[in-house]
């Protein structure tokens, strides 16, 4: 994996390690200056070994989560990369017919094959070029009655093996390819297994020229030339001589690809590949056209247009952005067109983006000229196939890490809260000790240092342990994933964790732990000596606020950061301290933290007043409305809610009300307002704010605010919440005193308990939301099968080269098929076109729009009149239901419908840079009636005449997800010059027909057409199981966070037992039995765990219900249901683990003799 959150992993690692090294250097420096403090700090570690182990366990979880997210990303990346590279072997570059030509004819002419081979052979970086025909043809093994359908047969030039890997038999022996005769065929392992054929067996390849007999020469490995290319469902490949394929396909001297191997062996060398590919691109592009393009594009207006395009399309894929930026810099240099320029303009995506940017800037003429030139630029298209595979693998791996990182962020946050909790409790247990230390002359900074030394030791141990745990956790999750990947999915998962990722996880884990430790140490050090010695609560410490001028000066110093420390270093004072602070500020993290702290200190007196927060909240809210940003708006509105709580507190504190009542009222009011705000349906405030756009950050924000508010509300009203529990459990077998003891302690320590509850709530919230949304989608699929498959039981594809003349007649003629089994049979064809919306629409002129690419699908009449595919939007003027709209389409050739991809959605998961045709003024989430609109369409690559169609409906996304124009088969003839071949057939079977049997019979009957029949229900189930597999993997990952929650509960409970030893002795003295003490601790931990789980489930349910309702408005067919099994599993697993963690300390507490407990100090 190369990039994470868009930042190169290498850079991230270097930065993290650098920050860590600075931290460590500073710690080492101070440690060396005062070793006594180091001893004071670290001597605590061996003193209570059990506690130390527990602390390391607690601290390592954040690192473990970071490590496992990286490991999952690396694994996905290395799996994709490994599978693809294995299959590619020595092949680095692939030469094919230019993209616009390939739609009609994918073959490279004999002359061009010769030219490419000559150019490649004479290139110093190329060590092999292999012309080949790779196409899908049926192969039959009559003896075993086995057939392979839709799998590639490859013709290779056996005289040109130089530079490519040898083909090896499954026994590892090199197969002498030159011995492969014109009737010899090699089957790779999968193909041989599919056909149940071995060396010496006869097989038949069915080609457009008829049946060709071959003898299996050997069964070979699935690598290199006998490996697959691209993302295909099977690894099977058969290899014959190129001449044999040329004759079978009637393509003498031609090839449909030429694979080129460059120097450097199997592993990709990006630079060499690029250089060789560039040379070939230049060699096979037209110099004059390239010069003319340079002339047009180097005009300042054109360069500006491309720059503007880059600036306004921030979400373009990084690969496109990089190419375009390079192009701009080439154009700006002026002079003669460079090699790189010539290479860049041959890339389809560059050509497309340049044409779009010219059109966008109103330079239509230039755009048109450029489009024509781009289309005529190259004779062949040169692709860096190996570089592309590596880039895609990294992209997908990065995507996985990002997704897991985002959803794992709650777990990481919870892990950090745990670290904080651990240190706060550690400090609490040493308050008296620290008070005495201060009383005998230790400075505050000494306490901080001693704490940091101890924390650094824990952080170091826990980061190493965390990385190891992360590896084990990801191994377990990946094992789980391997078990869940359906067998028929051709994807081998290889565990891969790069050392760099390990280093990053370790450094990141240790840096965040150290920062948290330093923060906790600072907070802890601010103790009041006498209060600490007497062991009184901190609330007895009076707080004083520095004057405004002091606070302003502090902020100024914080803002100047390293400069201020540099100044101090130069002018004098404590030089060592200034140097250290200067270095620390250079890490930026410390600088940022000190600015935040100084700002907080400056504002905190006003913050407590309430109204200034209201003002800030209002300003942020308004900024959010102006920028249409849901996140900014919500943060502002949340601040207003919080400030209302503060204001209430301020007003009530001037009354006679008791302090605890004031706190209860004000905190409850603030929390309730926050809950209302965040639980409002997404569009509830649209009339006030206009439409706001939000992304995944809204999920994280809602989780944080909702759980924060809910936990606060519960903590300040716990007596009310727990009243029913006391009421019902109290009378049961002496439970009343147990309940009192169990619940009083957690309710007294609101912060600690609230934090632990929040940990559980956040994790369960994430699990619940994800599970409920997946469940809704799965239910939608299960309950709406007809909306997906149109009511057709079988969908079959055939080779374009082997069309079926008349399928009805063929079925009637086939001895293996019974026409009675079929209720509907219909074919469809497809191609690519360009389209733009033309106006007026809804009384408004449509702004001038450019032509954008979209798919086109032609359906046979039998399909149009029988389909059950539905529309999310349609014009009631053409019909009152789906069937009537389809009928209207059939009746009028000027009408068309479109797929759901034409709608602009707010889908946060949709990839950026979607440049397909989109419709204006129709909202994806407002399903129902629309007014028909006009589109102008033309064949792909421009040039052809345009025609206008009236679009009367938009299908739902379950039927046609892409941006596609749908009409009769005649529509395709009308708009493109491409041969209109039906390549897909849909079959609806009669009641009683056996779908499995008919599907197999269809494949057999249409073997000569390479028919590959799929049962639509099976395909849907496969998608479902893939969804479930991902959901499970994800739940497993997020579930790691539950362990953080459970661990924190363990820490809290172990600490509680230690803190309360005397109280336990007293309770035993007044008659508490052992079992009562045990039950009381178990009840306490159950209260915390169940409160967290309950809140998480409740909030998760409401939020997922909202999300599902919103998606339902867009797509329809989704019904919210609570995934009870998941809910019960979450409750059971987290509760049982919580009880298990608490059981040991509880047992330990109950077993202590009362006298011993009373003696404990």
């Amino acid at each position: 994996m190369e990039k994470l959150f868009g930042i190169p992993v290498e850079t991230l690692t270097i930065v993290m390690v650098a920050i860590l090294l600075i931290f460590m250097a500073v710690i080492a420096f101070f440690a060396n200056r005062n070793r006594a403090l180091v001893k004071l700090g670290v001597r605590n570690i061996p003193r209570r070994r059990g506690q130390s182990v527990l602390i390391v366990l607690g601290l390592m979880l954040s690192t473990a989560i970071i490590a496992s997210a990286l490991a999952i990303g690396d694994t996905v990346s290395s799996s994709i990369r490994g599978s693809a590279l294995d299959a590619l072997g020595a092949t680095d570059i692939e030469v094919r017919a230019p993209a616009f030509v390939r739609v009609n004819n994918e073959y490279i002419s004999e002359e061009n094959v010769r030219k490419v081979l000559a150019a490649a052979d004479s290139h110093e970086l190329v060590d092999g070029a292999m012309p080949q025909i790779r196409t899908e043809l049926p192969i039959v093994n009559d003896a075993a009655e086995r057939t392979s359908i839709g799998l590639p047969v490859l013709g290779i030039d056996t005289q040109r093996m130089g530079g490519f890997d040898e083909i090896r038999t499954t026994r590892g022996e090199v197969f002498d390819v030159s011995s492969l005769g014109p009737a010899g065929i090699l089957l790779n392992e999968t193909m041989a297994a599919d056909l149940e054929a071995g060396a010496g067996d006869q097989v038949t390849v069915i080609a457009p020229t008829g049946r060709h007999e071959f003898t299996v020469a050997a069964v070979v490995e699935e690598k290199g030339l006998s490996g697959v290319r691209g993302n295909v469902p099977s690894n099977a490949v058969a290899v014959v001589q190129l001449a044999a394929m040329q004759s079978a396909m009637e393509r003498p001297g031609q090839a449909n690809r030429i694979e080129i191997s460059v120097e450097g062996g199997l592993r990709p060398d990006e630079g060499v590949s690029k250089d060789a590919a560039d040379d070939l691109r230049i060699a096979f592009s037209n110099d004059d056209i390239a010069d003319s393009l340079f002339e047009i594009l180097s005009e300042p207006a054109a360069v500006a247009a491309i720059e503007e395009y880059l600036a306004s399309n921030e979400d373009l894929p990084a690969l496109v952005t990089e190419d375009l930026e390079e192009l701009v810099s080439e154009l700006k240099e002026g002079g003669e067109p460079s090699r790189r320029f010539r290479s860049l303009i041959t890339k389809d995506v560059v050509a497309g983006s340049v044409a779009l940017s010219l059109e966008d800037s109103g330079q239509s003429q230039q755009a048109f000229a450029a489009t024509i030139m781009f289309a005529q630029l190259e004779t062949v298209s040169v692709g860096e196939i190996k570089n592309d595979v590596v880039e895609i693998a990294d992209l997908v791996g990065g995507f996985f890490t990002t997704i897991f990182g985002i959803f794992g962020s709650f777990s990481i946050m919870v892990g950090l809260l745990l670290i904080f909790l651990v240190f706060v409790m550690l400090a609490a247990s040493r308050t008296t000790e620290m008070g005495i230390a201060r009383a005998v002359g230790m400075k505050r900074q000494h306490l901080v240092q001693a704490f940091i030394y101890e924390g650094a030791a824990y952080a170091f141990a826990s980061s190493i342990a965390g990385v190891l745990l992360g590896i084990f956790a990801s191994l377990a999750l990946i094992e789980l994933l391997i078990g869940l990947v359906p067998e028929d999915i051709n994807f081998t998962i290889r565990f891969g964790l790069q050392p760099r990722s390990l280093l990053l996880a370790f450094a990141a884990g240790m840096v965040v732990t150290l920062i948290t430790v330093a923060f906790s140490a600072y907070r802890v050090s601010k103790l009041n000596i006498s209060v600490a010695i007497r062991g009184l609560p901190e609330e007895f410490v009076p707080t004083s606020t520095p004057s405004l001028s002091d606070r302003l000066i502090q902020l100024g110093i914080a803002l100047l950061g390293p400069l201020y420390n540099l100044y101090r270093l130069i002018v004098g004072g404590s030089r060592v301290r200034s140097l250290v602070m200067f270095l620390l500020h250079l890490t930026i993290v410390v600088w940022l933290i000190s600015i935040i702290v100084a700002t907080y200190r400056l504002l905190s007196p006003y913050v407590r007043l309430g109204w200034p927060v209201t003002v800030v909240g209002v300003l942020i809210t308004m900024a959010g409305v102006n920028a249409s940003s849901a996140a900014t708006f919500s943060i502002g509105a949340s601040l207003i809610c919080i400030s209302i709580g503060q204001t209430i507190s301020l007003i009530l504190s001037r009354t006679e009300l008791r302090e605890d009542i004031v706190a209860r009222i004000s905190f409850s009011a603030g929390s309730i307002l926050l809950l209302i705000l965040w639980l409002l349906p997404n569009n509830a405030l649209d009339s006030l704010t206009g439409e706001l756009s939000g992304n995944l950050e809204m999920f994280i924000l809602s989780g944080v605010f909702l759980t924060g508010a809910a936990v606060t509300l519960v903590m300040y009203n716990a007596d009310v919440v727990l009243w029913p529990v006391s009421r019902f459990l109290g009378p049961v077998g002496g439970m009343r005193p147990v309940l009192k003891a169990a619940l009083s302690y957690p309710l007294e320590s609101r912060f600690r308990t609230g934090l632990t509850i929040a940990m559980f709530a956040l994790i369960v919230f994430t699990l619940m939301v994800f599970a409920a949304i997946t469940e809704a989608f799965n239910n939608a699929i299960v309950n709406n099968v007809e909306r997906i498959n149109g009511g057709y039981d079988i969908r079959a594809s055939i080779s374009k080269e082997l069309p079926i003349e008349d399928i009805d007649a063929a079925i009637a003629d086939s001895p293996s098929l019974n026409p009675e089994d079929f209720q509907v049979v219909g074919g469809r064809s497809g191609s690519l076109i360009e389209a733009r919306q033309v106006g007026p629409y809804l009384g408004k002129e449509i702004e001038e729009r450019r032509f954008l690419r979209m798919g086109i699908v032609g359906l046979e009449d039998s399909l149009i009149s029988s389909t059950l595919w539905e529309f999310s939007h349609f014009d009631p003027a053409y019909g009152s239901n789906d069937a009537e709209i389809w009928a209207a389409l059939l009746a009028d050739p000027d009408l068309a419908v479109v797929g759901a991809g034409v709608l602009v959605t707010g889908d946060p998961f949709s990839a950026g840079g979607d440049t397909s045709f989109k419709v204006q003024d129709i909202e994806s989430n407002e399903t129902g009636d629309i007014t028909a609109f006009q589109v102008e369409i033309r064949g792909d690559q421009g040039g052809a005449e345009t025609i206008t169609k009236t679009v009367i409906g938009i299908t739902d996304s379950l039927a046609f997800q892409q941006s596609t124009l749908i009409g009769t088969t005649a529509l395709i003839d009308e708009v493109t010059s491409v041969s209109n071949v039906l390549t897909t057939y849909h079959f609806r079977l009669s009641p009683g027909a056996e779908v499995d049997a008919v599907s197999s019979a269809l494949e057999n009957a249409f073997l000569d057409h390479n028919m590959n029949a799929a049962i639509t229900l099976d395909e849907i189930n496969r998608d479902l199981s893939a969804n479930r597999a991902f959901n499970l993997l994800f739940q497993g990952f997020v579930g790691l966070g539950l362990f953080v929650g459970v661990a924190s509960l363990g820490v809290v409970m172990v600490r509680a037992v230690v803190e309360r030893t005397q109280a336990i002795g007293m309770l035993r003295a007044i008659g508490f039995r052992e079992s009562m003490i045990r039950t009381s601790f178990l009840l306490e931990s159950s209260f915390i765990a169940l409160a967290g789980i309950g809140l998480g489930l409740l909030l998760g349910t409401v939020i997922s219900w909202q999300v599902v309702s919103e998606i339902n408005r867009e797509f329809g067919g989704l019904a919210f249901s609570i995934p009870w099994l998941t809910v019960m599993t979450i409750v059971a697993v987290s509760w049982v683990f919580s009880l298990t963690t608490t059981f040991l300390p509880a047992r330990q507490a109950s077993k202590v003799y009362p006298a011993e407990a009373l003696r404990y100090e």
Partner: protein
Amino acid sequence: MEQEPIIAAEKIVKTYRSRTLSVHALRGVTLSVGRGEMVAVMGPSGSGKTTLLNCLSGLDVVDSGSVTIAGQPLADLPDDALSEYRARSMGFIFQHYNLLPVLSALENVEMPLLVSGEKPGRAREMALQGLDDVGMADWADHKPNELSGGQQQRVTIARALVNTPAIVWADEPTGNLDSENAADVMDLLCDLNEKNQQTFVIVTHTRDVGGRAGRMINMRDGQIELDRTTGAS
């Protein structure tokens, strides 16, 4: 007057052991305490006073010898039965008060009643009465950290006496109090002893306190050095 013994100890031995050290806290102590007696156990630090109290009250186990409470040998009682006995028939007053910091004074006093199965309403009534008896009714809703040392000790006394136990064990009940508060607390204990005829075993190192009890036992090195009546009550 010959009193019926409610507490009887026979040659009890208790030794604390660590890896490097053995401390013989009790070396074969034999004693009996009659019903309604107020006994002060005195002696220098480390003489075994608190250990004796813990062993007699069943808060700790003896290594050898036997302790009998109201005719029932403690060694024969399983832990649950012993706990129940403590709940119903014993009250404890500690030097460090040992109130539950998270409960109010009233809730602290109420706790032993709830443990003995008293109904909540009745328990609250009795607890309030208990606090009233020690002059703390006005402080019922305050948590321990809001009370002075003397006030906390009064709450502890109320908690120890609220279910009118047969035996009250007090370990340095005035140890953390100034002389005025100490005198108040002792007045209170003596009054209650007189009024309710409960047995009091008070561990103290203060001669003034010891002098208020009817019988004084002096301990040294884990043995009873002197056992005499003072004629105080």
